[in-house]
């Protein structure tokens, strides 16, 4: 209960500190900004450890080793090695090693897989000392990731986006909605046809396309304004409901 009250007061103070920028830049605002940046950075480290490295690597490795699934345990080092190689790009192997050691100490999480990971970091760091240009090796894991992403996206784009959307556009022109969609799609496509100068009939159609694009932008902007006001309402609701008991 007391922690909730403290948390609410801290959140309210930081909210007001950030909003104070609307009057003018001030030390309170800058302090809140720096606190935010610092906490975000710290959170990112804990996030990577608690949600990625520990459950996906350490815990899984330990579980497989306990179950005597040695191959399934040690094969986890392959993606781990790809991750370490990626660190060579910004020469982050030593900071990563330091962070790993600190996290192992803080969370008392000893595992052989972490020792191997640390050895990997050192093994990758030494060649970068000798020849910094070796960072080209970081392109391998990036290529691997891009390859997987592209493979997954290719089928999904066709199966889940392009084909359903194209097939939905081809509707019988029996009502106003279908006609508007048909005209809008054709006119917008013509607007993005750049192989011929937009003159004559092509110019007319592409101008209709611009109208449709502008309507879409307007709708999108209207929704964006609505979203920003909603966020403001959210903050005011917090201040007036959770912090000051004005709304009940």
């Amino acid at each position, binding site marked *: 209960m007391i922690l909730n009250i403290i948390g609410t007061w801290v959140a309210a103070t930081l909210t007001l500190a950030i909003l104070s920028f*609307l*009057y003018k830049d001030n030390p309170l605002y800058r302090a809140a900004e720096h606190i935010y940046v610092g906490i975000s950075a710290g959170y990112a480290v804990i*996030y990577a450890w*608690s*949600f*990625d490295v520990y*459950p*996906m690597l350490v815990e899984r490795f330990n579980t497989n080793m306990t179950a005597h699934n040695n191959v399934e345990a040690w094969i986890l080092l392959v993606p781990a090695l790809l991750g370490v190689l990626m660190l060579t790009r910004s020469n982050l192997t030593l900071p990563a090693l330091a962070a790993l050691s600190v996290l192992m100490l803080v969370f008392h999480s000893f595992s052989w897989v972490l020792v191997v990971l640390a050895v990997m970091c050192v093994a990758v760091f030494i060649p970068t000392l000798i020849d910094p240009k070796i960072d080209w090796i970081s392109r391998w894991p990036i290529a691997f990731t891009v390859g*997987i*992403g592209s493979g*997954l*996206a290719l*089928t*999904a*784009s066709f*199966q*889940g*986006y392009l084909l*359903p*959307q194209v*097939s*939905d556009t081809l509707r019988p022109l029996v009502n106003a909605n279908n006609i508007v*969609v048909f005209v809008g799609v054709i006119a917008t496509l013509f607007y993005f046809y750049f192989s011929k100068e937009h003159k004559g009939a092509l110019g007319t159609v592409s101008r209709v396309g611009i109208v449709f694009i502008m309507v*879409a932008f307007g*709708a*999108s902007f209207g*929704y*964006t*304004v*609505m*979203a920003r*006001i*909603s*966020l*403001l*309402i*959210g*903050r*005011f*609701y917090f201040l*007036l409901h959770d912090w000051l008991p*004005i*709304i009940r």
Partner: protein
Amino acid sequence: MNFWNRIANVDRRVLYLLLALSVALPLITKPRTTVPVSEAVKGVYDAVEALPAGSVVMISIDYDPSSAPEVQPMLIALLRHSFRRNLRVVVMGHLALGLPLADIALNQVAPEMDKEYGRDYVNLGYRPGSTALMVGIGREFRDYFQTDYRGVPIDSFEFMRRVHNYRDVGLLVSLAHGTVADYWIQYAGGRFNVPIIVGCTGVSAPSMYPYLRAGQIKGILGGLLGAAAYEQLIEHRGSASLGMPAQSWGHGLIIALLIIGNVGFLLSRRKGKK
């Protein structure tokens, strides 16, 4: 200096103050409003209503505190509706920061509706993997989620023993503030034909309508307005409904300022030409 010049040179802090008042006053005075229910919101309501009792609703928490004012009321209303219909709720997420928000909503709604963790709902937590995870759980949940977010094996929960992939999910709900909803539709909907509804921020709402029209999703809750309309449908007004008058006043002020600004600009220009 004439009236229009004075308006054009008004201190921007006055406008901030006016906007703050236009939002705060309706929150304090709480005027009751009714919002129109769109077909998109009705689609969400109907999709939940159409599920037989005991069906599994999987809610993906793909937003974080930056979008919570818009999306959190949707989660609370959806949980309330699902629990009222005796549906089993499985919560998961692609953003670790969204998990505490799911917990807050579950801890608020479940006791009200007399629902029990493990029997009526489960929180699987966050897993990295994004689109690979979406495709992977189409084969088997356990490849990614052997345990819930507390580390309890999911097979220790009775209803989870029969949940293996999308075939066992009656409805997939993506509550998202970015492109994750698109990914669910394209990767899970396109490949596995799982029925999907989307709750998203106002910014992303327009990009969801083509999916609705094409029948790829059953309904959309777009922004605070969508959440308020849904609260109205389930007859339980929450923070979204409370925020609607403030939303209207805020919009009214912005529209008025736009009109005044443009009229002033046109008049000043005409005067300048003369």
